[in-house]
């Protein structure tokens, strides 16, 4: 197993890229595109599971790409952390793609190719053992994201896409500057060779600080979080769920990896991390108070949860890192589940505004249960994975006697629960608004009956006409069917909610894996030895 897997690592990048090209070539074959995309993601998931099993005992798998010698080569390195994150991300991608297929977004010719290129970038970014290569793969991730945003930006318009592209490009440029400084001061960009350089040499530490700052912008840490709330809440739910689990989380992974290797977990800087994470937790959760739509509330919570995940960097103890990695994996699943369950309502009833919804508990009991499971898990109540994650994090902060961080974490948990209750009472309890059905029908017709607009150039004044409505729309408009969320829209959220329940009841399994990953981060010498072949 450990002999067979390493040479296959570059395939996780190459195969999705090739199949993305194939997907673009298949212009008229929608079904084939769906199959290629889901098939690739499923294979990637199986591959990631194999990697998790292979790295479960702390083994580090290394492949020197092109079989160059250590020091010249660009290595692909997989340890428990990268394998786990890749596994969860491929699950998320599958759920988001299923949701996009249900909303017909995935019918667009470039949707599946973009998702596959995105996943190729994710695989590369998680596996690479070279900072410059990390920069390249982050760009490979971002370019299809720009495309998805521009394509799915029904409400976003180009305004949100501009913010997203500008901020990410600025962060990428800063990352490039940081890499230049690291190379100038340390003479290498290979992570294994850089081991401990930030601890010994202040110049390298400063250069590493520039790199970490750039990555922190991508991870949307307070005070550089504003772009996230202004873009994610405005694109389509499927894309939001996909991005929420991938972009910021790859950046978080990179922060862990770089701090572990370049800085060797240097304790002199930990208080900075704790300060930033506490601010992130607080400001994220307070930002959600004033929001009016389900998705914008959830996006602000995403920021506060990023604070929780990064507490692990600020502690850098075995307990803290284990809890943080568990938290990271749990959070990706739960957040996407929440985005997809509220997104199912949004895509069916045409709005995510809390004031314009109500009474969904009677109307959509299945979504209500799914949302409740994920929301309670996010707030950190038993028996879901969120409880285990939060409990472990707070325990780890207390063990290091950072009482104020633990206090912030508890207070923010209460606020999270309040926010979730706000969505619950606004959307699921209460009475239905009188015009709910009517609004939903109008919306459905707009989205599925009239997907196309064209200008009639012949007319004297340019007018817009709408493409042909489908048979289903006519039936809906005739009032023959009551509006209800179709099961295929709920299924992805249920899938993810089931996983959070599974990880809550079977926390032992994931905790064990997380602990292995934490040990790898704490003792980077294993990583260095594996890469250098010593």
């Amino acid at each position, binding site marked *: 197993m450990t002999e067979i897997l390493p040479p296959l690592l570059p395939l996780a990048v190459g195969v999705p890229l090739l199949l993305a090209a194939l997907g673009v070539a298949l212009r008229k074959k929608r079904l084939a595109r769906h199959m290629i995309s889901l098939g690739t993601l499923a294979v990637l998931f199986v591959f990631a599971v194999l990697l998790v099993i292979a790295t479960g005992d702390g083994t580090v798998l290394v492949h020197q790409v092109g079989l160059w010698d250590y020091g010249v080569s660009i290595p692909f390195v997989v340890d428990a952390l990268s394998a786990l994150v890749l596994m969860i991300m491929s699950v998320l991608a599958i759920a988001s793609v299923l949701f996009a297929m249900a909303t017909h977004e995935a019918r667009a010719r470039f949707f599946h190719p973009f998702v596959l290129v995105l996943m190729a970038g994710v695989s590369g970014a998680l596996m690479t053992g070279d900072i410059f290569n990390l920069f390249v793969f982050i760009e490979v991730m971002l370019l299809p994201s720009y495309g998805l945003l521009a394509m799915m930006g029904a409400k976003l318009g*180009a305004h949100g896409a501009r913010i997203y592209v500008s901020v990410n490009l600025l962060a990428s440029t800063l990352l490039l500057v940081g*890499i230049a400084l690291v190379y100038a001061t340390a003479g290498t960009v290979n992570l294994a060779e850089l081991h401990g350089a930030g601890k010994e040499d202040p110049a390298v530490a400063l250069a590493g600080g520039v790199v970490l700052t750039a990555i922190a912008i991508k991870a949307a840490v307070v005070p550089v979080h504003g772009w996230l709330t202004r873009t994610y809440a405005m694109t389509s739910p499927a894309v939001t769920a996909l991005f929420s689990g991938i972009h910021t989380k790859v950046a978080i992974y990179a922060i862990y990896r770089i701090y572990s290797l370049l800085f060797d977990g240097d304790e002199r800087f930990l208080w900075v991390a704790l300060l930033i994470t506490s601010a992130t937790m607080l400001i994220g959760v307070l930002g959600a108070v004033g929001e009016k739509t389900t998705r914008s509330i959830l996006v602000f919570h995403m920021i506060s949860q990023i604070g929780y995940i990064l507490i692990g960097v600020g502690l850098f103890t075995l307990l803290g890192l284990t809890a943080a990695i568990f938290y990271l994996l749990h959070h990706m699943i739960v957040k996407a589940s929440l985005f997809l369950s509220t997104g199912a309502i949004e895509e069916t009833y045409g709005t995510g505004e809390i004031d314009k919804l109500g009474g969904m508990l009677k109307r959509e009991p299945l979504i209500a249960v799914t949302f409740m499971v994920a929301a309670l898990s996010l707030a950190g109540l038993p028996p879901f994975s969120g409880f285990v994650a939060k409990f472990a994090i707070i325990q780890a902060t207390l063990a290091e006697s950072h009482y104020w961080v633990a206090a912030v974490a508890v207070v923010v948990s209460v606020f999270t629960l309040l926010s979730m209750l706000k969505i619950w009472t606004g959307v699921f309890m209460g009475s239905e608004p009188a015009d709910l059905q009517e609004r939903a029908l109008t919306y459905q017709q707009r989205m599925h009956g009239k997907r196309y607009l064209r200008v009639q150039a012949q007319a004297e004044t340019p007018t817009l006409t709408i*493409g042909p409505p489908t048979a289903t729309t006519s039936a809906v408009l005739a009032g023959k069917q009551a509006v209800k969320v179709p099961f295929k829209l709920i299924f992805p959220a249920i899938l993810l909610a089931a996983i959070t329940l599974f990880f809550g009841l079977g926390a032992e399994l994931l905790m064990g894996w997380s602990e292995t990953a934490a040990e790898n981060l704490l003792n980077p010498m294993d990583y260095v030895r594996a890469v250098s072949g010593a």
Partner: protein
Amino acid sequence: MSIAIAVGLLTAAAVYLFMQRGMVRIVLGFVLASHAANLMLFAAGNTAYRGVPYIGSGEVGEQADPLPQAFVLTAIVIAFSITMFMVTLAITTTTDDDTEDVEVSPARLLAADRGDTNDAGYFGLTTESGDIVVDRGEDETGDPWPEKTPDTGTASGVENSDPAAPSAATPDTEAPEAETTREGETR
């Protein structure tokens, strides 16, 4: 030293351009910023006191480090592609940018140059899907666009026969089921 000065000047110019209102200026700012980053990468290869890194042009120790130059090549390609995307964003939309007048939006100017007053960019149209509006061709699923006009009677007029007063907002909502912006999503 000359590289350091150049990096400083480029960064200053880039920051100045970021602060401007128009998208095209912001794009130019990013072009300058990526140049600054590339020059820093060059500087990391010790260009100041070393020779060109050609095989056989001297001792290995005397030659500049070729690796940062390879980095720069990669970075140029990436920066170029993103710049293209941003320029596209700048010219394909007219009504979403709250910082610019519609009259001077690049999309409108381009359409006016072509004399194409039927172009969507000309009369400031925002479609809800952000589609570029076409007369015929293929829709997003790849099927050929049906030639016949739908008989659903849901044509919504864009009330601007007068090109001098383009409707900057989404089309008017008088017609039933016309494209209103999705409710409650504007922030």
